């Protein structure tokens, strides 16, 4: 897998705007930038730590219920030792922490959050969510002119 980038979309496209993470992957698949590996997830689980240990860079994409300026945010995502309390429903930071602890790897990681508005049963995004998605994808392609793996700083720790 070498210099590939792992992109994980989190959500459920049967719950309205919770499908934003998967919809974003669909957009990336239409216009791939470099060597991306796309993974669709309902939720993160401990085995994702094993998967991301094979990649130098990871991008998480998830819907967000909170208000975000411009409808999305893209931020670095550090390992979070204090977040892994829910066993088979993990946060990105908790899985990165597991990855570091179990496999001695710390991929460069980002979290793209896209604001959603409606979370009830049903497929399809709201108009506002679709607009936020469009802005987020445009920003993503602009920000990452190169594959994420080319960004500086994938850290490999001593295997323990």
């Amino acid at each position, binding site marked *: 897998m070498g210099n590939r980038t792992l992109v994980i979309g989190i959500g459920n496209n049967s719950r309205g705007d919770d499908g934003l993470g998967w919809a974003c992957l669909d957009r990336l698949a239409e216009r791939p930038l470099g060597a991306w590996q796309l993974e669709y997830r*309902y939720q993160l689980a401990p085995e994702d730590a094993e998967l991301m240990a094979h990649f130098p860079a990871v991008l998480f994409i998830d819907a967000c219920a909170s208000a975000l300026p411009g409808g999305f945010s893209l931020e670095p995502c550090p390992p979070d030792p204090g977040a892994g*309390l*829910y*066993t088979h429903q993990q946060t990105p930071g908790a899985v990165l922490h597991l990855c570091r602890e179990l496999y001695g790897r710390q991929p460069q990681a980002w979290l793209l959050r896209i604001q959603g508005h409606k979370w009830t049963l049903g497929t399809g995004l709201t108009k506002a969510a679709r607009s936020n998605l469009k802005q987020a994808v445009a920003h993503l392609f602009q920000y990452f002119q190169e594959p994420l793996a080319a960004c500086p700083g994938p850290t490999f720790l001593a295997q323990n």
Partner: protein
Amino acid sequence: MAKKIIIDPVTRVEGHGRVTIHLNDQGTVEDAFFHIVEFRGFERFIQGRPYWEVPVLVQRLCGICPVSHHLAAAKAIDQLVGVDPETLSPAADKLRRLLHYGQVFQSHALHFFYLASPDLLFGEEQPVALRNVVGVAMADKELARKGILMRKFGQEIIRAVAGKRIHGVAAVPGGMYQTFTATERDYFLQGGDVPSVDTMIEWSQEMLHFIRDYHDEHRAWLDTFASYPSGHLGLVRTDGALDLYHGRLRAIDSNGLRTLADVPTDVYAKYFTEDVERWSYMKFPYLKHLGREKGWNRVGPLARMNVCDYIPTPLAEKGRRGFFSYIGNSVNNHTMYTHWARLIEMLHCAEVIRELLNDPELLSDDLQRSGRQRLEGIGIIEAPRGTLTHHYVVDERGKIIRCNLIVSTTHNNEAMNRAVRWVARQTLEHQSTITESMLNQVEVAIRAYDPCLSCATHALGKMPLQAELYDHQGQCLQVVSNHG
């Protein structure tokens, strides 16, 4: 002063449940209940849908065991197109078995390593912040790494057969959609991104040694905690062997006497009925001829160990014999031995997967059969958590007009309620203060059954736990929080 304790939601289980414990003025437990408080209604809303949609629709019951619902429904739908398990093509039968045993393997791995192991490794006195999968990973990295890869192996088997790890499509009416390839077979035999099937067998044996040693160290607790007599129900082959995909229904009482003597699955309704309680959306199934009080049964790994005569793979059979010689009885009614039984089944699944991978017929493209259309179909399977029943009736146009699902966790409803009462009486009676560790013991008993409350009723549970202690006037006396 009378009190009521509420644990809501119960953690490290699939779905949303609540426990209430009622104490009287003397601090004695008067009663305790395990409630399922949300409603799904799958049986209702698939009515009117064409039968061929059902195996795909019902997968949405669950994100953990969608394959079990897919295959139970497929077995029922096979009958609607005139195909019985005995007339399914050999290749389709083997592909379904590969899918099913991969599913049970990954589900058992998830439960043991992610959900139950914190209870076993740390004990209830340890801080709640430690009692989770990250805590396990910090305490025993080798165990955690193996657990993750064992679950991944089962998931990759599912992906190979069904196209996706969750909610794939494999079975179609009368057979299977696509065959297995030699490349896929070799991947699992020789190993790739996941270790080989031989490694899975080796690691499963290691886990059996681990749980045996654990029982040696904690025998007093494991032989008594939430232990009570019950019936046991499961599928067996006609020769009495364990079979997770198809067989006859056998039930025994707590002493091993047969209460249901190997009846065909398509007559289940003659023997089983279900009761309801106003305080839960989950029903209570039982054997009609024994009545509600005596006719309920545990299902799942422990029940399957108890009802089968033997396991048809050598290493798991050796494990089963060791299991029963350890306790010295022919029937085991100790709830906490369910974990041991689950690990024996993991080994069995890995052995079966190896057998199937080495079977040339797995690569055959003779995948579908058809027959004379029928109006009723019944599919029963041994899901990871126990006996799972799908029953459909269609009209002449093939639209579903009636559906009955008896999910594994529903069979265990009575058993889990008794477990809650047992623990409440042993740990909470006459206590001036209710601690988080006391409440966790209630959850430990429930978790042993690996309940899937999503399947049994409804979906996502919020994970934080909060217990509130009320007096008889409804005044909150104490709040105990848990985030495990």
